[in-house]
Structures are given as structure tokens and as C-alpha cells.
């Protein structure tokens, strides 16, 4: 009897393991299963490229909506869907997770965490950008600073842990990154004067495996770039999903602005590791190398953009690269093994730097800091880029970026820290309307040289997707979802979706049919060929 029970339990465990939907090995091989979209940016390299070819330049003009899902609560829908085995997992504002039948858009389950009414969200709207999936579990970060693991079949809570105390302004908007035995999550909250960090959790138990602060404490490497107690409120949020190189076993994660944002007088020095790219070991969280794009930032130009990994020859030598179209308007290419700076090229209008020197350090133009009377600087506060994803096509070797052409009058204010309140010391007035614009740009991925651009009326807050069908999909604030020829930028199809697009497109296939999905307004749209 007892033996039989043990055998039964053993079988049950084996059965549970084989029923695991999305083991790590499957995410590593994501490129070979383009029907699914298993991680935030499509693959660990964060290329947001689909190898599907059914929708292509020849037929995209016939693209039609297949189904539409409307979210339950209004708010900005910034979700980037995950698709695995016929199920789409999306998030709705502020921190709801919903599983949809990919054939019809009918909900399979939905889960809403209990968000306290006095939740503190300073620095962004209360949004969520997506989930991670690993085995049979779906992971979501919340605006009240929790990380929650949900059963992928039912939405039942497997565990729910506090990442950090929301009363001090810690919150989460980004999709976690699921690795082998690790769920990596970064926090938001620099505008409330948090001390930023990146955490790894055990996917099975929710137990924290490591925490790496993005702001060193006194005595730690980098602490010499801070003054007095400024590190305690130093910011450096890690609020956007990073990338992973399974061969080098390194995680690449961007960090945000130092606190307070627009008055750097209290924090003389470079303020490491703010506005930087960190390469960390997923095993213990140790920083292998760092590269700081904007030392001593005073414009709120977080480096929370997507680090895109690809390999290419530079000067005849094959290199493992990481590229980022930074919020500060420069496109950077680094060696991702060593962090060596290779090049920086402006991809949008900028007025703050004379140039980037041979080590990658910007030489600032004098008189471009925030002031009491307002200083006009390009790019604007939200930057030439922001969280919306770029795309890299391994076929075209192009880096596609939705670029924002906009300036801001930057104002400097007085810093005053109070726990759980805004710690920003200034702000800005956007130069918008007819004085701003945008473009989808195709850059040579290794040099940053412009190959083509497609102009937009306003600075976009939509990501882009490139496909093996020779297409680049993108969106506008005016609600247009569109497809461009990936080689020339020529518009091939567009549709008005009736609400601003503040999300990333992705592609998947089911029953032999390819679809493209994007959120717009309060809805998620899925398109296919008739």
C-alpha cells in the first residue's frame, strides 16, 4: 500500500514534469519554434524578430483583424503577449494577468492581485508590460511591488512574494525574465528615491537567490562615484526586461536614472551604476562588467532600453555584440563578452553632447543642464527611445528603432526627500505637437548608419517587430498599426485601431496560420490573412 502510494506519487511527479509547457530548453531554442513567442522579446537575445514568412511583403496589404480582446479596466495597455501551445498570456493595467485562447480571443482565466488603494506608483503610469513563462508557471510583477507565480492552466497562485516595500516607492511594471532555475526581476521607483536592484528568485518556491544593487554601498566598487548619503536615494531602477546569452551565461540589464532626476548637485560624481548596462552572472548576480552611457545624468535618460544581442564581424573580426539605442539619442555597440566600447552613433537629434570619446564617455555641451528658467535640450525627457522594443533582423542585419524627435525645456528644482514621495527636483515642458515628430529607422546594426527611415507625425511610444516575411510592424500614438518593407521602409499596409499604440508587436502561428498581435487603446488586436 505504502509502496503503491509512493509509486503513484512518483508517477505524478514525472507526469507533472513532462506536462511542463515551457521548460528552459524550449526558450533557449525559441528561434527554431517561431509559432510560439516564449519570452518578452521573442528570444533571449531580445531581437523581437519572427522567422514566420506566411505574412509577407506580397500579401500584407490583405491583413485583417482576426479577433479583438478588450481589457476589463481602462488604463494604458503596454502588454507584450507571450504565446505557448495555443494560449496567449497578456497583462492588463495595472497588474492583471489574462490567458486567452489564441484561436478566438476568449479568456481562459484571469487573475487580479489585491492592489491596495494607496499603492505608490511614482515615475510612470500604473502599467504592466507582460509576463514570463517557465514550465507550467506564469510570473508577473505588480505595481504594489510583488512577484507572483500563477499556475499556467488556471491562474491559481503558486506563490506571492514581496520584492520590496511599496511604501518607499518600489514597484514593478516590467516582465520578469525566466532562466534555468531563476526568475530575474528589476524594480521601478527612482523617482521616489529608491536604491535600485535586480533580484533572482527560485521559480519553484519564490525564495530569493540573490539581489544585486545597482547603487553600491560605501566601500563597494563604484561607491567612489557617490557623495555622502546620496547613494541611499540614488535611484538606478532596473525597470525593463533584460537579455541573456546562454553560451556566455550572462544576463544583460539596463539601469535607470540617478535620484533626484534633474538636480545633480547633491550627488556629484558619475553615480554608478545608473544609466548603465550591467552584465551579470545569473548564478550569483555578480557584475562581470558595466558600461555607463550617461555618467551623472541630469535629464532622466534611463538606460532602460532593450539590450539586443547579435554576432557580427567588426573590422574583419567576429564579435559577440550587444547594441542599445539609448534614450540619450546615441546608438551604442559594445562587445558583450568584455563590455568594450566599440561605437556610438546618434540616431536622433541631440544637443547635449559634443561627441562620445574613444572610451564611450560623452563630452557634454556646456549650458545643457536643467535650470530655473528652463533649458531647451534634445532629446526630451522621455528620450529618443524608451521602453518600446527595437527589432534586429538576422536576415537583413538591420536594427530597427522607432525614434522620437522631440525636445524638452528642462527645469531644475530643489531636492527634498520624503519616503514614498516624488524625489525628482525639477521636470520639463515638452516641445510637442507640430514641433515634434518621429520615425521608424533602419540602422546598420554594427555601425549605426542609417539605411532608411519612415517618418511619423509624432514621437512614437510603440515598439517594432521585424519578420522573415520582409516586414517591419510598428504603431503610432494616433492609433495607426502599419507594416513597412524591411529593406526599404516603404509602407505596405496600415489600419487605424482607434487608440494610441503604447505596446510592442509580436507574431505567432496556430493551426498553420500566422498572426500578428498589438495592443492599442484598451484592446488587444490580432491580425491574420483572410
Amino acid at each position: 500500500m505504502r509502496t503503491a502510494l509512493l509509486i503513484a506519487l512518483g508517477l505524478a511527479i514525472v507526469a507533472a514534469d513532462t506536462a511542463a509547457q515551457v521548460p528552459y530548453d524550449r526558450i533557449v531554442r525559441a528561434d527554431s519554434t517561431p509559432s510560439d513567442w516564449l519570452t518578452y522579446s521573442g528570444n533571449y537575445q531580445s531581437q523581437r524578430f519572427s522567422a514566420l514568412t506566411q505574412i509577407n511583403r506580397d500579401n500584407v496589404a490583405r491583413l485583417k483583424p482576426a479577433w479583438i480582446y478588450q481589457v476589463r479596466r481602462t488604463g494604458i495597455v503596454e502588454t507584450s503577449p507571450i504565446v505557448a501551445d495555443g494560449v496567449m498570456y497578456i497583462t492588463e493595467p495595472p497588474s492583471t494577468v489574462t490567458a486567452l485562447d489564441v484561436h478566438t480571443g476568449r479568456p481562459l482565466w484571469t487573475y487580479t492581485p489585491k492592489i491596495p488603494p494607496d499603492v505608490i506608483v511614482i515615475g510612470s503610469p500604473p502599467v504592466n508590460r507582460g509576463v514570463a513563462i517557465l514550465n507550467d508557471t506564469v510570473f508577473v510583477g505588480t505595481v504594489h511591488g510583488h512577484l507572483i507565480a500563477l499556475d499556467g492552466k488556471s491562474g491559481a497562485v503558486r506563490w506571492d512574494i514581496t520584492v520590496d516595500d511599496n511604501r518607499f516607492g518600489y514597484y514593478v511594471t516590467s516582465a520578469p525574465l525566466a532562466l534555468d532555475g531563476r526568475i530575474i526581476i528589476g524594480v521601478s521607483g527612482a523617482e521616489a528615491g529608491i536604491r535600485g536592484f535586480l533580484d533572482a528568485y527560485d521559480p519553484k518556491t519564490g525564495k530569493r537567490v540573490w539581489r544585486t544593487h545597482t547603487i553600491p554601498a560605501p566601500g563597494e566598487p563604484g561607491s567612489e562615484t557617490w557623495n555622502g548619503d546620496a547613494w541611499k536615494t540614488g535611484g538606478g531602477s532596473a525597470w525593463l526586461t533584460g537579455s541573456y546569452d546562454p553560451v556566455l551565461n550572462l544576463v544583460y540589464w539596463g539601469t535607470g536614472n540617478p535620484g533626484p532626476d534633474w538636480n545633480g548637485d547633491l550627488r556629484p560624481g558619475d553615480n554608478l551604476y545608473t544609466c548603465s548596462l550591467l552584465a551579470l552572472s545569473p548564478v550569483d548576480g555578480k557584475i562581470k562588467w558595466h558600461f555607463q552611457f550617461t555618467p551623472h545624468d541630469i535629464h532622466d535618460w534611463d538606460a532602460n532600453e532593450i539590450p539586443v544581442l547579435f554576432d557580427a564581424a567588426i573590422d574583419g573580426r567576429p564579435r559577440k555584440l550587444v547594441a542599445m539605442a539609448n534614450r540619450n539619442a546615441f546608438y551604442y555597440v559594445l562587445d558583450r563578452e568584455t563590455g568594450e566600447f566599440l561605437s556610438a552613433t546618434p540616431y536622433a537629434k541631440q544637443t547635449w553632447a559634443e561627441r562620445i570619446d574613444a572610451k564611450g564617455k560623452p563630452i557634454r555641451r556646456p549650458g545643457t543642464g536643467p535650470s530655473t528658467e528652463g533649458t531647451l535640450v534634445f532629446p526630451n525627457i522621455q528620450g529618443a527611445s524608451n521602453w518600446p522594443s527595437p527589432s534586429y533582423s538576422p536576415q537583413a542585419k538591420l536594427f530597427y528603432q522607432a525614434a522620437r524627435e522631440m525636445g524638452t525645456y528642462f527645469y531644475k528644482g530643489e531636492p527634498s526627500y520624503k519616503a514614498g514621495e516624488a524625489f525628482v527636483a525639477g521636470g520639463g515642458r515638452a516641445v510637442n505637437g507640430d514641433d515634434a515628430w518621429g520615425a521608424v529607422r533602419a540602422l546598420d546594426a554594427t555601425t549605426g548608419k542609417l539605411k532608411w527611415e519612415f517618418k511619423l507625425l509624432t514621437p512614437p511610444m510603440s515598439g517594432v517587430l521585424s519578420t522573415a516575411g520582409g516586414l517591419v510592424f510598428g504603431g503610432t500614438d494616433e492609433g495607426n498599426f502599419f507594416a513597412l518593407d524591411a529593406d526599404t521602409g516603404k509602407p505596405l499596409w496600415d489600419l487605424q485601431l482607434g487608440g494610441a499604440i503604447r505596446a510592442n508587436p509580436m507574431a505567432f502561428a496556430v493551426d498553420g496560420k500566422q498572426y500578428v498581435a498589438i495592443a492599442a487603446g484598451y484592446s488587444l488586436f490580432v491580425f491574420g490573412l483572410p
Partner: protein
Amino acid sequence: MPLRCASVGIVLFAVAASVEMRAGAQTPAATIQQGKQLFDGMCARCHGIDGTGDEGPGLNRATLTRAGTDEALREVIRDGIPDRGMPRVRRLTENEIDQLAAYVRSLGRTSATATSGNADRGRALYEQRGCASCHIVNGQGVSFGPDLTEIGMSRGAAYLRQSLLGPAEALPRGSSPVPGRGFTEYLPVRVVTADGKEVRGVRINEDPFTIQVRDTANRFHSFRKSEAREIEKEFGKSLMPSFRGRLADAEVNDLVAYLSSLRGDK
């Protein structure tokens, strides 16, 4: 590049006598001086230096409708009035709000620039000059140009004067939800269709692929940009005629006085 007021459209504090201003405790001159520095940096572009009004209303009055109490004033300074075009330019500390509030209140204690015109004579001029063939006041008139029913609450006298004498330099920006976000409103456009037909009117809305226009006969048109032969957005122009040289100074003053008196009440 025209950077005038960018996202800052209109209305800050509207004018209508209702609440008696309370000066409160003596405010140190230093606080007021610091408030002026903040005001000149963030607010003067729309509200005018010394709060004399421009695209935003004048603040050099004893009573401010939207800021009758000190708490209401602090709230407006802190949060802006986004749906009326006044942004929250930046987050302010309590101390900075104190300084700004003290300065704004001090403006009301100086003598307001009086509008020298006569509103009744202005109303007669409005009727004689055919303004109603393009504008609505209290439901009467034609909707080609802006509705002026509450224009006295949202614009200062200096801006209204500019609108009469050089309307092209005073097109409102981002004060209404369409086209929104700091866009120039009533922007003249000229479209030539594929078959050579020319349409002239004002831009109603636009995206990268399409543009919506209302022509001079107040009819809507929609164009796909890729199908039009020519689309010219005429920045620096206005379809409203300039009254410079066509009205005497006194008449302009009278019209400004009339427009300033339009506050939504019949």
C-alpha cells in the same frame, strides 16, 4: 521653430469675482522673489511676465476663480489643469509651491492693467464686422473658427489683441482634445487631389497616413496622404483676416473688452 507655449494651451485661473482674496500672514519679500524666479521660468510663457496674461489668462487680479482659496491656488499650481491646456510643468516641493503661491497672490495686489475699451461698443463692432460668420458666441453664429463663448476665461487681453491684429501668430495650440498634444489648431492646409481638385481649409486632425480638413465652406474632407498630389500645411498663416489697419486702436480696445467679458454667462 515656433516654440511659443508648446503644450501650454490655455486657461489657468479664470477671472470672475467670487471669492475675496485672503492675503494671510505677512509673506517675506524673499519668498515672493523666489516665487517670481520660478514663475518667470515656468509660467510666464503663457501667463505673461508679471502675470499680465497672454495665451493663458492674466493673473494680476485680486480674485482668481479657479484659485479662490489658497488651497485651490496651491492645487492648480501643483497639478495643473491638463484638460484645459495647463500642464504640470514639473513636480514642485511644498516650499516651491509656497513661493509660487505667494508670488501669484502678490500680483493681485498690484494694479491690474485695465482694459481701456468699452465692451458694449465692442459687441456692436463684433456684430457689424461679421465676426459671427465664423465664430459662435452663446450658440449664435458659424462654427468655422473657435467658439468664443468663454474666451474671456481662457485668454488674456494681450493674446486677444494679437488674435485680432496678427491672427497667424496667435493660432491656439493643444487647447482642445483634437488634434491635441500641443498641435496648432485651425492650421490652414491646401490639398490638391490626384485629379487636380484643390481644397483649402483648416486641419482638423492628422496621422502619418491621413489628414482631415474642414474647408472654407465648413465641409469635412478626408484625404489619404499617399493618394493626394500635394498637401501643404501652411504654418505661419491663418484663415482669419487681420484687422491691423482696418480697425482704429480704440475699436480694437473695445473688441478686446467685449471678448474679455465673454465668460460663458449670457
